[in-house]
Every structure is written in C-alpha cells, then in structure tokens.
C-alpha cells in the first residue's frame, strides 16, 4: 500500500519534471531563435497596435475606392472558380489513386508504396516552387495558377482519401468480398457509398484552402485576386488593397459557413 503510494508520487513527480523540462526547452529554443533572427518579442508585440492603427488609417476604404470594387469582385470570382476547378479535377484523380493505393483496396504492395510516394512528393514540393516552375513554361496565365493549385491539391487529397478509405470502408468491404462480390462491385457498393460524406467534407475544406492559397499563387504568377492585391499594394493604393482584403474575408467566411451547412445536412 505504502509502496504503491510512493511510486505514484514518484511517477507524478517524474511527470511534472518531464513537463517542466519540455517547457524549459521550448522556452530556450524560443529565446535562441529570437536572437538568431534578431526578433525582439516586446518590440514586436508593441508594433502590433501601431500596425493596426496604421492599417485603420491607410487601408480604410474611401468613397472613391469603391470604384475598384467591380474589378476586385471580378478577380475574386475568377479565383474562387479556379480554386473549385482545381479541387474537383484533383479529387477525380486522387480518388482513383487512393483506391489503387490504400491498404484495404490497393491491388498490391508495390502499388501502395508507389502511390504513397507520389502523394508525399506532390504534397511536399513547396507551392512556391510549383508556381515558379509552371510560370516559366506556361507564362502569366490563369492556367499556370490552376496547374500549381492542382498539383499540390492532388498530393493532399490522395493522402486524405486513402486515410478515409482505410478508416471507414475496411469493414464493409470485407463483408462484400465474403459474399463473392467482384472488385468493382465492392468499390461501388461498399467503398464509395461509405466514404461519400467524408469525401465531400474534404473537397469543401480544400476549396476554402485553395481560395487562400490562390492568393499566394496569384502574387507569384500574376493572376487572380493575388495579382490585383499585389498591384494595388505595390502602387501604394492601400485603400483599394484594403477592400481587396475585406472582400477576401467575406468570401472565405461565406464559403466556410456554406461548407459547414452542407456538412450538417449530408452527415
């Protein structure tokens, strides 16, 4: 009795020690990191209110800046469409590869490793690299932005879809296989119906994400909403840049709300 109490106290003490150690280490990394990057935390924190008051003055849209609105909305619309198209095309490709490569529906070990490798490769190449390489070959066009988003999204969705299939479809699949159903029957009667809600949920999430990422791609490749923000920003038309940011906020929040509503209905 006494012995177990002692070990419990020891265990708790040990656990607290480990936690304090980890927190100390994190603190140390932070301090060293700040020193190396020449970042002054207090100065930085103090500059936030300054930055916001600067923003409030300069980014505040005036009456005239409303004239930019049609152009901004046009580009934003273009960007949203591109984000959707890149996700849908990526999803079609990804579901195919995910079925070939998942642990439960995969055809063989080799294919599983290959698909995992391809997905990881596409996912981990920085979006910046994709955008710049494609810009070199495809010039400043929407197609460049579309391809950059597409390639990165494929990597993400293959991994996500494979995990969904493995988590949600394994059991039903096994049952259908046992009835003597063929491979394609199992895929279409068990796997697809079972994973559809999660599939849509991921597609919606990637659309939101790609609207944001399209801004980055746009700045680099000179397309869509990113291009127009960069343009206003570099020519010091901050009021117009302000409206651009506001419109992005509105659109992303609308998309998020819409996605959440759709998720609620389909689950």
């Amino acid at each position, binding site marked *: 009795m006494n012995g177990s109490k002692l070990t419990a106290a020891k265990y708790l003490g040990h656990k607290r020690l480990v936690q304090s150690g980890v927190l100390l280490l994190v603190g140390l990394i932070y301090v060293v990191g700040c020193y*190396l990057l020449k970042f002054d935390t207090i100065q930085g924190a103090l500059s936030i209110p300054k930055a916001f008051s600067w923003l409030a003055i300069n980014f505040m849209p005036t009456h005239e800046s409303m004239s930019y609105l049609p152009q901004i909305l046009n580009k934003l619309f273009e960007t949203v*469409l591109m984000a959707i*198209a890149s996700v849908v095309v990526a999803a079609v490709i990804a579901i195919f590869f995910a079925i070939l490569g998942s642990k439960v529906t995969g055809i063989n070990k080799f294919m599983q490793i290959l698909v995992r490798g391809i997905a990881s490769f596409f996912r*981990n190449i*920085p979006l*910046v690299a994709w955008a710049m390489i494609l810009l070199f070959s495809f010039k400043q066009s929407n197609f460049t932005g579309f391809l950059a988003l597409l390639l990165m999204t494929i990597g993400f969705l293959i991994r996500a879809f494979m995990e969904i299939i493995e988590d949600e479809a394994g059991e039903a699949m096994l049952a259908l296989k046992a009835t003597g159903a063929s491979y394609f029957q199992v895929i279409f009667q068990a796997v697809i119906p079972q994973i559809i809600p999660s599939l849509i949920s991921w597609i919606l999430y990637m659309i939101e994400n790609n609207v*944001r990422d399209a*801004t980055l791609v746009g700045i680099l490749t000179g397309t869509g909403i990113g291009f127009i923000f960069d343009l206003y920003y570099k020519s010091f038309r901050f009021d117009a840049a302000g409206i651009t940011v506001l419109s992005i906020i509105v659109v992303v929040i609308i998309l998020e709300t819409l996605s959440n509503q759709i998720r609620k209905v389909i689950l």
Partner: protein
Amino acid sequence: MITKQGSDPLIQKPSFNKNPQPEKIRLRKTSASTWMINGVFISLILITLYTLTHLNTENVKMADAFRGLMMTLDQMFIHPNAGSDGFMVLLEALGVSVLLAILTTIIGAVVGFFLAVLASRNLTNAYFGAGIRSAMAMIRAIPTILWALIFSIAVGLGPTAAILGLSFHSVAYLTKAYSESIEEIDPATIDALKVTGAKFWTIVFQAIWPTIIPSLVSWTFIRLEINFANAVAVGAAAGAGGIGYQLFVTSGLSFDFHEVGYIVYMVIAVTIVLEFIAVRLRQHYLAK
C-alpha cells in the same frame, strides 16, 4: 447470370404477370442528404466545366509548354546542384525558414492556448467566447501571405514582419483547434473540480491541460508543418528571407533550375523529418 433486367420494360412485363406486384420495389427513400450530395456534386462539376472551358491560357502553345515543363523538371529533379549560392548559403537560409516556423508555432501555441480557454463554450460566458471565435475566423480568412505583406509595410520589411504575419494565422488556427479539443472534454471532469471550489485557472491547469495534451501536441505539430510551408511562401512572395527567398530568386530571376531542384529537395527533406516527428509523437501519446 443476370438477364434482361431493368433496362427494357417491354421484356420485363410478362414476368410481372406471373407474380403480380403493381409497382417496382424502391430501394431507398429520397432524403435531404441524398439531395444535398447530388446537388453539391452536380454544381461542382458544372462550375469546373465552365471554368476549364473559359480558362485564359494567353495563347500558350500547350504542347511546347509541356515539353518545356518536362525539361525543367528533368533539370530540377534529375540533375540538381547547389548552384552559385553553394550548400552553406542554402543551408543557412533553410535554417532561417525552420526557425521562423518554430518561433511562430510557439507564439501560436502559447497565445492560442489562452485564447482557446477563453473562447471554449464549456468554460466561459457565451458572448465573450463568441467574440473571440469570430475575431479568429476573420483572421483565418485572410491568407498568411497577406498578413506578412501588411506587416511588412507597417513595421518594415524583415524577420519581424514575417514573424508577426505568420503568427497571426497560427494563433487563429490553433485557437480554433484547441478550443474544439477543450469542448470535447467530458463535463464531469470539469464539474468534479468545480465542486471543490477550485479557481478558474486551477481547473484549466489541473483538469483541462492534462486531458487535452495529446490533441494539443498533435495539432501543434500539424501547425508546425503548415508554418514551415508558409515560411517558405512568405520568404518568396514577401521577400522575407529564408529558403523561400532563395527559391524565388533562382527560379524567377536567375532561372537556374538545377539549383531550384536542389532547394526543393532540401525543403522536402525538412518536411519529411517534420512529418516523421509528428507521426511518432502521435503514436507516443496514443499509446499512453
């Protein structure tokens, strides 16, 4: 096995007469869920078709462009080299990006945790929590790169702008993730301490913190991976330094794709290490 079923009503009719059943048996009711799924799929496909057919390609010759792309990829991935900058310069730049990611994740985690506690529905009063949550939703809606650009005019170009820009999004993201974890806590755990008369922050650190450590760690590392990708992006598009800036210069100004390939391999190496750590940590905490 199956003959003449479903497709042709004329052929099917006779068999019906033997075993009279006035209507075909339906397999499912139409539900809101089915309608929504079909609706979402059809609209997404229509939007995509419209977008693809109206995509502005600026008269780029596709065949030539793809051939060019293949050549670029060949230079990058098959024949990478450290180029004019050399390994040490690139390594230092990579280090800067990694540090940026780590610092902004730490800031995001610390600030995010406190905000999450204040924003969770099961801990604070509804209005206050809702206020924080909608502020965070606004911050998240603005792409990280825009935060970095905005701060770089407000406080001047450099690491401070990059750190503040990346931190904003981190804080907002982690606040949401953490507060969702907190909201999943069994109310009994919190009530048990409340009846002992424990103070608010005592409850937080005695009941909530230990309970959510696994998901806390897991979300924080996911964010570290995201922050590294963002650090590269911000370096390139906001000129904030690090490996992203090198990437931008070599691929956009000096067009040395051998070096681009080299840089990409370095970035991939870091992301794989980060992914590995994240997976191991998750396993470690799940095992407990």
